[in-house]
């Protein structure tokens, strides 16, 4: 009998494998001083030196994000506020080195936690991690179960510290499941950097090592002891997707042309330099949405102008002659960043999000706009602003862009000469007013995920209503039509960069509505291209008309599925 646990999706992908349950190790050690404080002080000094040496090695061997975590451990290790209380517990408290470390570590962590601050709460976890590492060295125990794994496994734990995560031998972690944590906890960050699926925040889950589990890091689901059929389904689904993708990949680098000769631009949504390389490999004809948030993720300071410029340039270089649409920072709502403090909001989705945030933080905006223009030096730049609700915001954003360009010229710095400016259409007010906004921009890109949640008044992060957030709702279809008609009347182009664009089922509908460009995650590119080649524009138009006349999303879905059946 299988058991399904639901948590927070923390790193994408699906994997089937045996569980390795990591039980937090409780070290046994004596708490007294058989030979007085002197030998305990000596043992402590040796252990600190040993651990310092190990941490220095780790800073060098792991990636940037993880190394920052170990660099923090190193600083805490040598801090007088950590070492002095340990020595005091040994000298005057009569404690062994281990007991002194335990007490001092607990005290510092508790002091951090007493202050209501997320950053300090995370540092309390670092102090506990450091405390446990130091005790392990003192008791001479390196028998960490995670370091001993010899079979590729799904690691299940209450929580995982960075030092535990990197102790797992390479290739032995198929995926991670933790009882606590959030999408920004250490385990989640490290899982993403290792490219393995992870589900966190599972609550209490009772499993034993050796049980088989399916981890679905996209949906945040873990199925323990799946039936043969479930394992087979998971493996078949993976294999079927892999096979379809392999076939579609063979033609991925050819243009997507409908049966009646209409070319559709198929581009990719990209969120990192690696993604850009994947997009090239998948046959994307450019980037329709460069999410710049990755530059700001998993760090507590802001990326500087030179750092951003180098990354934007590296991504533009992957597409030397194809369009690259760079979206300015889009945070707020469900996307929080440690480096940017946003006052708590009752309704974050209706609060300081997207362009609203960057307009309120000219320091961040100016630096990013300068970096985008510099990163596209020697070619044209396409810049897009997220979460636009009204014309005044477009005016303000364009003024900021002009100021950034002028400041670069004043300093004699190289920048992109031709600049195309677009806005994302995600807010119903912008869709309804598209005929008035079209004259102010060069293009629109419709973000169907947010447009759907705002149009249907459905919080897509609220499980109780999430299934109502259906982008195929005719209300959304009608808004897309309004936007396309408004843009084309002004001679401007329209893209779609939400999940809907990557759904082969919806390709006919979007092309029939007149959408010029579809932007999607790289793996979807070959499949959508294949779909476009199987339909005609004429047929798509009549399909779109039928969908616009539908009353419910189910009717729309039925119309689209009937098209697929007819085509076959």
């Amino acid at each position, binding site marked *: 009998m299988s058991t399904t646990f639901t948590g927070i999706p923390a790193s994408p992908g699906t994997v089937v494998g045996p569980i390795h349950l990591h039980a937090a190790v409780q070290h046994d050690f004596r708490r007294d001083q058989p030979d007085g404080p002197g030998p305990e002080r000596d043992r402590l000094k040796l252990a600190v030196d040993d651990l310092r040496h190990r941490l220095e090695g780790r800073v060098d061997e792991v990636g940037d994000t993880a190394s920052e975590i170990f660099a923090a451990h190193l*600083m805490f290790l040598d801090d*007088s*506020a950590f070492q002095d209380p340990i020595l005091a517990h040994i000298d005057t408290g009569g404690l062994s080195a281990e007991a002194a470390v335990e007490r001092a570590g607990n005290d510092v962590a508790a002091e951090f936690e007493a*202050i209501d601050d997320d950053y300090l709460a995370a540092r309390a976890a670092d102090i506990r991690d450091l405390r446990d590492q130091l005790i392990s060295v003192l008791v001479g125990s390196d028998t960490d179960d995670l370091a001993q794994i010899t079979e590729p496994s799904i690691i299940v734990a209450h929580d995982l510290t960075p030092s535990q995560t990197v102790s797992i031998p390479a290739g032995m972690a198929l995926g991670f499941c933790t009882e606590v944590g959030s999408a920004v906890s250490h385990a989640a960050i490290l899982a993403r950097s290792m490219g393995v699926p992870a589900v966190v925040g599972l609550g209490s889950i009772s499993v034993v090592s050796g049980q088989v589990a399916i981890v679905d890091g996209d949906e945040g689901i873990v199925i323990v002891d799946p039936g043969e059929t479930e394992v087979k389904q998971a493996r078949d689904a993976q294999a079927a997707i892999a096979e379809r993708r392999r076939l579609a990949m063979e033609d991925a680098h050819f243009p997507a042309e409908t049966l009646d000769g209409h070319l559709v631009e198929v581009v990719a949504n990209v969120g990192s330099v690696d993604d850009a390389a994947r997009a090239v490999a998948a046959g994307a004809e450019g980037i329709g949405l460069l999410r710049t948030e990755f530059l700001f993720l998993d760090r507590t300071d802001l990326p500087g102008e030179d750092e951003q410029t180098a990354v934007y340039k590296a991504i533009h270089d992957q597409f030397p002659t194809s369009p690259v649409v760079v979206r300015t920072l889009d945070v707020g709502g469900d996307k929080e960043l440690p*480096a940017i403090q946003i006052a708590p909001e009752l309704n974050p989705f209706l609060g300081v999000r997207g362009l609203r945030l960057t307009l309120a933080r000219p320091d961040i905006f100016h630096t990013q706009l300068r970096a985008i223009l510099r990163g596209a030096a020697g070619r044209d730049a396409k810049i897009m602003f997220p979460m636009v609700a009204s014309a005044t915001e477009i005016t303000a954003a364009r003024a900021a862009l002009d100021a950034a360009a002028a400041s670069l010229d004043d300093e004699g710095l190289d920048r992109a000469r031709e600049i195309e400016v677009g806005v994302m259409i995600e807010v119903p007010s912008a869709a309804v007013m598209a005929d008035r906004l079209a004259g102010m921009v060069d293009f629109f890109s419709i973000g169907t995920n947010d447009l759907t949640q705002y149009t249907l008044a459905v919080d897509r992060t609220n499980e109780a209503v999430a299934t109502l957030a259906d982008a195929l709702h005719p209300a959304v279809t009608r808004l897309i039509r309004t936007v396309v008609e408004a843009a084309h009347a002004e001679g401007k182009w329209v893209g779609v960069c939400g999940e809907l664009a990557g759904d082969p089922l919806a390709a006919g509908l979007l092309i029939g509505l007149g959408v010029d460009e579809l932007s999607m995650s790289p793996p979807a590119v070959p499949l959508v291209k294949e779909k476009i080649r199987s339909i005609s524009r004429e047929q798509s138009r009549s399909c779109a008309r039928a969908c616009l006349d539908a009353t419910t999303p189910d009717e729309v879905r039925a119309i689209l599925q009937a098209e697929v059946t007819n085509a076959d």
Partner: protein
Amino acid sequence: MKEAQLTVQSSVGLHARPATKFVGKAKEFASDIRITNLTRGGDPADAKSIIFVIKAAVANGHEILITADGPDEDAAVEALVDLVEHGLEG
């Protein structure tokens, strides 16, 4: 004894890398240096300890007091004020 009062303008306050920079600078001086978070309240904390500085929980916009006592107290306060005002980010 030398002191200075100022407002921290750093998007992450005196956390993370800015805290490391601040402590690194403080350690360059022989004087006893303390930092007090006037906005949040609390006792003067050892400016040469990363743990104490983080515990002061200085956020963007907080008012702080820096005091130095020792042979290079003037230079210490001047250097730390300059760092907080101009050098925390980047």
